[in-house]
């Protein structure tokens, strides 16, 4: 061992370096006050969630308050943990149109993978940024259609306009509007009061 190493060992040099590091943070935090804490006081302040945040799943409506869901069951087929149950039915008087008569999501099983949202042909499903869903009874996490629609209503106040480019009796899926060119004001039909 060299002399320098001996001096370092005898004066606890390495420990002093470490203690300098901690006291530096302390001084910056308490005396200079130029170092904020990384802590977020959670129930009082909440973090900004990214746009792609995967929270609770909601059912959406068009701007005329009609449900987007057409009861096709593709979300049920896509779901890897069998969260979704759809009971589809015909619309009364419109034999070609179907809708989800009942729609259940057992969110206690959901893994928030987002496959149902990808599977939906009419974009009737979306992920909200809600995450504070602790319940006392796990059966409260089995959401029915009104609950899912309410989730959508309170998280997506701006609704998509219903596109009527097919005969209203024939229109089954409003398919294709992903590929359509973006709508200009000229294309929009006149607003009827």
């Amino acid at each position, binding site marked *: 061992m060299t002399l320098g190493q001996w001096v370092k060992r005898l004066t606890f040099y390495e*420990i002093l370096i*470490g*203690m300098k*590091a*901690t*006291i530096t*943070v*302390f001084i910056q*935090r*308490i005396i200079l006050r130029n*170092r904020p*804490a*990384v*802590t977020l*006081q959670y129930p009082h302040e909440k973090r900004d969630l990214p746009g792609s945040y995967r929270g609770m799943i909601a059912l959406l409506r068009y701007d005329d308050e009609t449900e987007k869901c057409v009861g096709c069951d593709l979300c049920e087929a896509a779901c890897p943990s069998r969260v979704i149950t759809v009971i589809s039915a015909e619309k009364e008087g419109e034999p070609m149109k179907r809708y989800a008569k009942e729609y259940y999501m057992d969110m206690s099983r959901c893994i928030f993978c987002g496959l149902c949202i990808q599977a939906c042909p009419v974009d009737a499903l979306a992920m909200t940024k809600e995450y504070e869903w602790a319940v006392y009874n796990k059966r409260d996490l089995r959401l029915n259609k009104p609950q899912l629609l309410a989730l959508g209503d309170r998280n997506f106040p701006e609704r998509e306009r219903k596109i009527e480019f097919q005969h209203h009796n024939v229109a089954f899926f409003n398919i294709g509007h992903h590929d359509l060119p973006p709508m200009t004001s000229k294309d929009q039909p006149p607003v009827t009061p």
Partner: protein
Amino acid sequence: MMELMTFAGIALIKIVVVLIVVLTTVAFLTLAERKVLSWMQDRMGPMEVGPYGILQPLADGLKLFFKEDIIPAGANWALFSLAPILSLVPALIGFAVIPYGPNKEVELFGYTFKPFVITDINIGILYILAFASIGAYGVILGGWASNNKYSLLGGLRAAAQVISYELNIGLAIIGVLILSGSLSMVKIAEAQAGGFWHWYIFGGLQVIGFVVYLISAVAETNRLPFDLAEAESELVAGWMTEYSGMRFAFFFMAEYTNMVLVSCVAAVLFFGGWQAPYPGTLLPENLAWIEGIFWFTVKVFFFLFMFFWLRATLPRLRYDQLMRFGWKVMLPLALTNVVLTAIAVYLVRQ
């Protein structure tokens, strides 16, 4: 008889005052530790109970008071109950000989007494060391009586560790005792009057002794980086594993009371106790005691901060490292300090 009564009454009042002050300090030290640690780690610490979490000790105390008191089925009931008391009482008893302020006699309502020390016995420091050793029994018996492997291991470790490091404490302070020629805490502090260059760490060149004392004190109070007996990553909670409720609170209080005690001893032995770092006093003669108590408090809290600072910085030692450090580094250093101080004092007094 009357004299005895007044003596006992005054002593009792002093004991109650000191006890209240010490226990309040201990309660708020738990908060201070959490706050200081969090400030050093970019966190906030307790923030919910009261403004900036200032009432956290009250909440903790209430919680521990109302917790269920569990005695394990296989435990030795008597020793299990005795251990927390045996570790708290020796820690509190040490405060009887600590001088908190100037050693002056005050006359109040016709009684003459020294207000800032409960009793000035002529073997003060020896008395503190003796009771600190008894405190180790609390840990050892608590670990054995719990009938739990983790507790037993923690108790065994505490036994070996406290004994090794108490030896170093005893040797580290011998330099001071040689210089002051007394074991009385009051006389040791009085001998360091007149500016910081008269304090034994600077004037008596007791730097080695002080460093050995400080490190051994951390080890003796079972604090990080020497909390081998508790070692939550290996032994759950060491000797406290089976304890809950107020019994656990007693151990907790004993740990913090020991911290305050060794800080007080360090302040008195090496940093002049109540003596200000400048000669004389700034305040007039009859108010000088405020200054004395102020400087004593500042010194004690500096050492307490040192405890937190060390805890925030250093990781726990391995058991063999601890033992090697204690016997092969600290003990020779302390002995060197004794020999050097003795030679220096002999030469100076020739």
